[in-house]
């Protein structure tokens, strides 16, 4: 009877395609928006992820997330270095100066100041130049977004100059950066240089980057730093999640995306359910005939569930393929970089689609189960 179920479904082409479209659209919308949401949240941790040399971040206890930092004192670097278990500790600065090109174009940029001596935290994925070039006078490394903003449609060339807080800087490297949340260009300079590019304050140290000694876990070293200095220490992963949680709790982003995803879920369920129910109503006589002939309720329920699962599987495959294709096609776009369809989103969407088709088929199953087979004798 599985054959009969499949044939009944695909024989009504309009409803069959309508069901698949409803599920595919719902799948696409849910997975696409979930991916965008996850990508945007992931972007809040971009600068944390891009620093690969150190896995422990030390900060003022009042610092809640990466983008708003309460400065440490310069002494804090030495205090952290003195904690047993710390292999090394270096300063890191983060600020938001304004960069200006000589044609007048300007943008606020994310300025990262890395340790003068070791250059720990400097970007490693360079398109042109090398991290060592930061040692050159007035050197900055610029990400591709920044370079293409200030020098649109021009080839990548080192040695071009910009102005940062009345200081002339020279681009000595161009690198690939993870897209920041605010989509600002990212600049790197030596720590001492970076401090001069922003307004002067008494304390400017943003973070201390730490590497744990061999044989000790990062968590243990974080605990020791916290106990010894009173500062907050977190692994890169922990600090990343802390930042994400801040944005989730303090912005309307999750609600906005949540509403869109909920609408996709409801529309998918309603349209699929309605179409399925109409399909069942139009085939009620046939279902009645099958019951009269001796097909059991269990068998008929199985037929309807098979039809629902078939529609769900095909619709889901099309929807997920559309989402994957979208992000594959757009991955070369600098503004859309970093958005990836995570397997967790694909799996979660699949579970939701399963719910949609099961819910959509429930009304139909109920309608057929209560159908009296004698109805086929009533003309």
């Amino acid at each position, binding site marked *: *009877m599985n*054959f*009969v179920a499949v*044939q*009944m*479904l*695909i*024989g*009504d082409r309009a409803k069959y395609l309508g069901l698949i479209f409803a599920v595919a659209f719902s799948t696409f919308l849910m997975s696409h928006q979930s991916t965008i949401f996850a990508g945007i949240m992931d972007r809040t941790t971009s600068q944390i992820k891009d620093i690969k040399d150190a896995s422990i971040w030390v900060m003022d206890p009042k610092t809640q997330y990466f983008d708003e930092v309460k400065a440490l004192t310069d002494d804090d670097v030495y205090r952290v270095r003195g904690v047993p278990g710390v292999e090394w500790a270096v300063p890191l600065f983060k600020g938001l100066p304004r960069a200006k090109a000589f044609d007048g174009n300007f943008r606020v940029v994310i300025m990262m100041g890395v340790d003068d001596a070791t250059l720990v935290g400097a970007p490693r994925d360079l398109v042109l130049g090398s991290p060592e070039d930061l040692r050159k006078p007035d050197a900055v490394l610029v990400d591709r977004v920044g370079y293409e903003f200030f020098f649109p449609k021009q080839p990548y060339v080192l040695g071009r100059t910009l102005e940062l807080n009345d200081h002339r800087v020279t681009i000595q490297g161009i690198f690939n950066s993870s897209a920041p949340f605010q989509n600002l260009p990212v600049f790197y300079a030596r720590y001492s240089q970076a401090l001069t590019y922003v307004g002067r304050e008494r304390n400017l140290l943003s973070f201390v980057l730490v590497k744990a000694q061999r044989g000790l876990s990062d968590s243990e070293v974080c605990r020791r730093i916290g106990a010894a200095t009173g500062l907050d220490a977190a692994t890169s992963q922990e600090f990343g999640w802390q930042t994400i949680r801040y944005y989730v709790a303090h912005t309307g982003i999750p609600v906005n995306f949540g509403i869109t995803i909920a609408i996709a879920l409801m529309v998918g369920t309603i349209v699929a359910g309605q179409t399925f129910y109409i399909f069942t109503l139009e085939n009620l*006589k*046939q279902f*009645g*005939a*099958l*019951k*009269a*002939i*001796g*097909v*059991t309720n269990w*068998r008929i329920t199985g037929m309807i569930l098979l039809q629902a699962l078939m529609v769900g599987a095909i619709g889901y495959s099309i929807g997920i393929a559309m989402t994957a294709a979208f992000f594959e096609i757009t991955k070369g776009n600098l503004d859309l970089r970093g958005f990836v369809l995570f397997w967790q989103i694909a799996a979660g969407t699949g579970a939701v689609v399963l719910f949609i088709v099961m819910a959509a088929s429930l009304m139909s199953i109920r309608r057929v189960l209560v159908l*009296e*087979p*004698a109805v*086929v*004798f*009533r*003309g």
Partner: protein
Amino acid sequence: MTHNVQTITHPAVVCRRVTKDFGAGENQVRVLRGVDLDVPFGGMTLLVGPSGCGKTTLLSVVAGLLNASGGEVTVLGEDSRRMSGGEAVRFRRRNIGFVFQQYNLLPALTAAENAAVPLLAAGVPKKKAVAAASDLLSQLGLGERLHALPSQLSGGQQQRVALARALVHGPRLVVCDEPTSALDHETGNAVMELLTNIAVRPDRAVVVVTHDSRVFQFADRIAHMDDGRIVETSGAGSRPFEPVFAGVN
């Protein structure tokens, strides 16, 4: 194929004082008011009467699609009151064939696939079921139309497919509800001829509900109903039957 032809003396269907009520309380309507009816093997019994007299309700009770409110109904030796819901469904699947007024073919299945449905429901593999159905359809003159969809068949052809579906699993009781009412006179006659020649055989009973007097000539017995009762039973029709053995045993 061999057929188990036997002389059967007991009736295929026995109804004694059968009643059927619909609704409850003040809205209760008694449709069958004490029906007594015997349907013998080896012939075609017509149930005739005016609209609303309870013919279709009685047919539904005999076929096991409705439970009688009172009285006794014995079908092929089985007391229908003693069967559970699942047993009744299995009994129908094995022993009863249905021909509906509106054919009720599945529009997405071909003629052969439609006719094979009772075998598919019984778990027979699709290939074997469709082959058996195709044989039967060929005997019914539809050998060239096995792969046609119902929408591509005439009314008479669809009813022949429905007839094949009713017979393919070798049932011992075939019930037909107004099989010719949707057909013109000539086509209706053709269907009734097929029903007589192929469905009727010594170990099978055929019950036809109809108000079409043109088909009375095909009957072996005619039971007249009125107001929920059998009021008269008349004898054989004018045609001798010539059973042709068919179906899967």
